[in-house]
Structure formats: C-alpha cells, structure tokens
C-alpha cells in the first residue's frame, strides 16, 4: 500500500481559540524551559567526517619530497570536467615527472576518478572541505600546493568491506 495519509478529524464544534492556543503555549514552554539544542557550534565543533568523503585533492610524495606523479596523463584523460592540467617531462635518469600539474578545484566535481585511475597512487582526494578563497585564481592548486597539503587521503571503496567500517 503506497502509504496512507493520517487525517485528523477536528469537528468545528470542538474548535476553540483559547484551548488550542494554551495547548500550543504549553508545548513551546517545554522547549523554552528545557531546550534540546540541535545547533552545532560550527567553527568550534566540527563534523565527524567519513573516511570516504571526497574533498580537496592532495598529491602523495616520495620520502625525499618529490611528487609521486609519473606524468602518465591518465587523470586529465579520465577527468569528466577537464579540470586537471598536466604537462609531463623527463629528467636526466629518464624518469617521467609532471612539469606542470594543476587542478582547478572550482571546476572539479569531486567524482574521484583521478584517484581511482592513478597507476602510482599519486593524486588523491582528501577528507577536507574548508577550501574557501577570496579569488578564483587561488582555486587553481599547483603541484607545490598539492604536495604541501596535509589532510588525510580519501579511502577508496573496498569491495571486501562495502560499508567501510
């Protein structure tokens, strides 16, 4: 049965302003005297975030501080909104690295495809959402900024632990 609507039958003969209003006042008084506060004092108290929250990107680094990115070009390819700009280069040892790596967080839809597709687990989304800026230019994160960020990586969905517990 697609749900039934509860209909409160209030005969006109028993309607009364005075009694109805005093009932209402009683209910609000209960809340006024014993408030069950639902407010979260946001900047002081923060949310408990899920490990799988997809927020601001982060670039993983090697122990010597170099970005793990090998400039394979998979993430700009998979990105549905074209927010990743990657120019690869090769160093004297023949190893590829990203000469330019920029993510426009303003365009990003936080789908997490880049993190899933990355073969070397370099680019990650992070458990972090407070990324307000005063100008749009500041929303384009370059490689240096991406490696400096310190919030935790987003956990990918694990098929052996579907509820992520």
């Amino acid at each position, binding site marked *: 049965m697609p749900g*039934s*609507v509860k*209909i409160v*039958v209030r*005969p*006109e*003969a*028993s*309607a*009364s*302003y*005075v*009694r*109805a*209003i005093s009932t*209402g*006042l009683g*209910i*609000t*008084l209960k*809340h*006024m005297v014993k*408030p*069950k*506060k*639902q*407010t979260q*004092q946001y900047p002081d108290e923060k949310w408990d975030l899920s490990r799988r929250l997809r927020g601001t990107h982060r670039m993983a680094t090697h122990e010597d501080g170099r970005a793990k990115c090998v400039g394979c070009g998979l993430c700009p390819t998979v990105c549905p909104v074209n927010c990743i700009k990657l120019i690869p280069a090769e160093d004297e040892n023949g190893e590829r690295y990203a000469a330019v790596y920029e993510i426009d967080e303003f365009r990003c839809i936080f789908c997490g495809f880049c993190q899933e597709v990355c073969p070397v687990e370099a680019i990650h989304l992070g458990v972090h959402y407070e990324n307000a800026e005063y100008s749009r230019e500041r929303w384009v994160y370059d490689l240096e900024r991406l490696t400096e960020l310190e919030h935790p990586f987003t956990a990918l969905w694990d098929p052996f632990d579907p509820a992520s517990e």
Partner: protein
Amino acid sequence: MEPMTGTSFIVFTALKVVVFFVLLLVFVAMSTYFERKIAGFIQNRSGPNRVGPLGLLQVMADGLKFILKEETEPGGSNKKFFFLAPVLALVPATVLFAVLPFAAPLPTRWGLMEMIVADAPVGFLYVLAIASLGVYGMVLGGWASNSKYPFLGALRGSAQMVSYEVALAMSLVPVLMLVGNVTMPEIVSAQQRFAEGTGAYGAWFILPLMVAGLIFVISGVAETGRVPFDLPEAESELVGGFHTEYSAMKFGMFFLGEYAHLITTAALITIFFLGGWDIPFWEGDNIRVLADGTVIGEPAWWKTLLTLGSFTVKSLALVLFFMWLRWTIPRFRYDQLMDLGWKVFIPLLMGYIMLMGLAIYLLDSWGIPSGLKYSAALIGLNVVLMVILVWVVDRGSIVRGATARTRRAPGTAPARTRPVAPNEAD
C-alpha cells in the same frame, strides 16, 4: 509632605524625561536580543551567541550594522513621507510612556515627586489618542514606498489597527466605570487597598474585569502588529509588508518602533489590569496623592525602588509572554482577523459593558462600599462569564474554514469543506 512645585518640578521633570527615555531605549534594545534568544530556545536553537558573552553584544552589532548599511530608496517614492514614516512609527510608542506611572511617589528635599513624567489629568485619553497614531507610520511607510507589497501591507495594517483600536478602547470602559477617573495614578490606586468606600478595590483589575483584561491583551497584541496579528508585515505573503523597501537605519527605526510598541503595550496592560507598580499582598506600598495634594500612606525611597522593580518585572513578564506567543502560534487569515475584531470582540464588549454597568449599578445601589467585598462580587461574576466565554462562545463559532460560510440555497446540505480521504469511513 507636599507635592513638588515650581522650579524643582521643572528640573526634576526634565531629569525624568531623560532617564526614562534612555531606560526605555535600553529595554527596547535588550528586548530584541531576548526575542531572538527565546525564539532560539523554542525552536531548539541557541539564539545569538557569537558576539560578546552569551551574545549580549549582538544588540550593538545590529545597531552598528543598521547605521553603516546603505540607505536605498525606491524610484518614484514620496521622499518626504518615506523619511517621515519610520519616525512616526517610533515616536508614538515612546511618547506614550510620558503618562505612565512607574513607581510609588518619591520623597525628596523639595517635595514629593510623582514617578510619572507628565501627570496629565486626561492621561487615559492621551494613551488612546497616541496609541492610534501608531498606524500612521505603517500606512505612510507602505504608501510612500510606491511599491505593491508595502502598499498591500499598509492597507491591511490600517484596517487591522482601526478595527482593534475599537476593541482596545472599549475594553477599557469597564475600568473607567470602576475607577470613575481618567488619571493614570488613580487607576493604579484603585487597584490597591485603601479604606473602604474611597474608590479602591483591593484587587488587580485582571480579576474583577477578567473578560475585558483578556480582550485588552489580545487587542494589544493586534495593535503592536505582532504574530498572530502580523498581517501588515506578513513576510511569507508580502515579502516584508509595509517596510519592504526600507533599509539601514530607516528599517532600524521601524524595528525599534515595533519593540517600543511592545514594551509600551506591556506597560499599559500592567497599569490597567495588573495593578501598575503595586506589590501584591503588601500594604506598605499603598501610597496615594489625592487631587487636593494630601498624601495617604508613607512614601520612602526604598518603596519607590521596590515598586519600580515590581512594575518592571510585571511589564517584562508580559513582554516575555508576547514573545512566547509569537513563536507559538501562526498568523491569522485576514477574514478571520476581521471577524474576530468586528463580529466577536465588539459585540462581546458591548454586552460586557452593559453587564458590568448593571453589576456596578446594583452593587452601588445595595450600598456595598468599594473594597474587597465589592471586587469579590465582580470576580465571581467574571469567573462565570469566563467559563461561558471559553466553553460556550469560543466553541466552533469562531474558527471556521472560509468555504463553510459560502452561501447555499435554503434546504440543501452544507458543502463539504474538505475532500474525503480513501481511508476515511463514510
């Protein structure tokens, strides 16, 4: 001790004007804070708590914001009246305080000082006259804006104010019949206990004139234009009603005017029906200055302070009650509002005035002196009337859907007022 005269009278009156005006504005400002706090608590929120300890500086932050914001003015507005309206909204609510007695008379070296800014012999009529000026701010504001929503708000406001003013004034007639005087200090004294037969009834008028008191409170809320009578503002229907086009301090003045009006109404109810500055069950504060200057009772500075406290507590409790009411009940539908004013309150009050007049006439002609016995008889009568009012009059005949009243041919069944649900047994 003689009442104050001459130069000292003028000096002290000027002093009282300044002190009470400042006090009133402080209370107005604080009541905006308390309104938001109470709204928060009732709705399971915290209310303002970021600015200063417990959010107490929120009032100042708001004031600063009002002053610093840009003043906008709609094109084609009537500039003169557009500027005048906020002033007219704030001024009547504040000047009304001039004739309200705050406390027992204060003895000074220069004579006995009445704690009232202007002890006008027609204080009562002044109250009614100034209270009805309040509508001008609303109507002019809505009309001068040259905009549709404010205009609708102003139309609603003017109709509402005019309707409820009648009920407001009529509910004070029984008070006048009992007191037999229109000066405000006399109305307070009449609710205190003095020797029998001196025109004092020893009971706050909310008891012997319960029905009038109830209607005065309700009409008072309607006059302040607050929920459930906030049709001129009606932000969910008319954007912001009469002050839609106002910004910055001009809006601020409407805002302050509303709260000043609220406090004034609370003070008026206190004086007319809650014994003014009288402290219940205590004979020491029964101080009365007769018209010829003789003083009954023993004035003292600490009694003045205590009675001032009593007046403040009563008024603020009423302000609190109005806020509580505001965050409890929804707005009236316009036709219900008009029905309540014209078809319920006014006939009710007419009958009530006749009945109370008869009762007072009978009690007088039986030779019962004004005093506790006299008011006990009236209290008995009023309790009966209240029971009839709540259990018989206020049943079905007041709240009714708009469709239930549509005209139908005689002999036909009344139209259904709501659709029949499938799970409803017919």
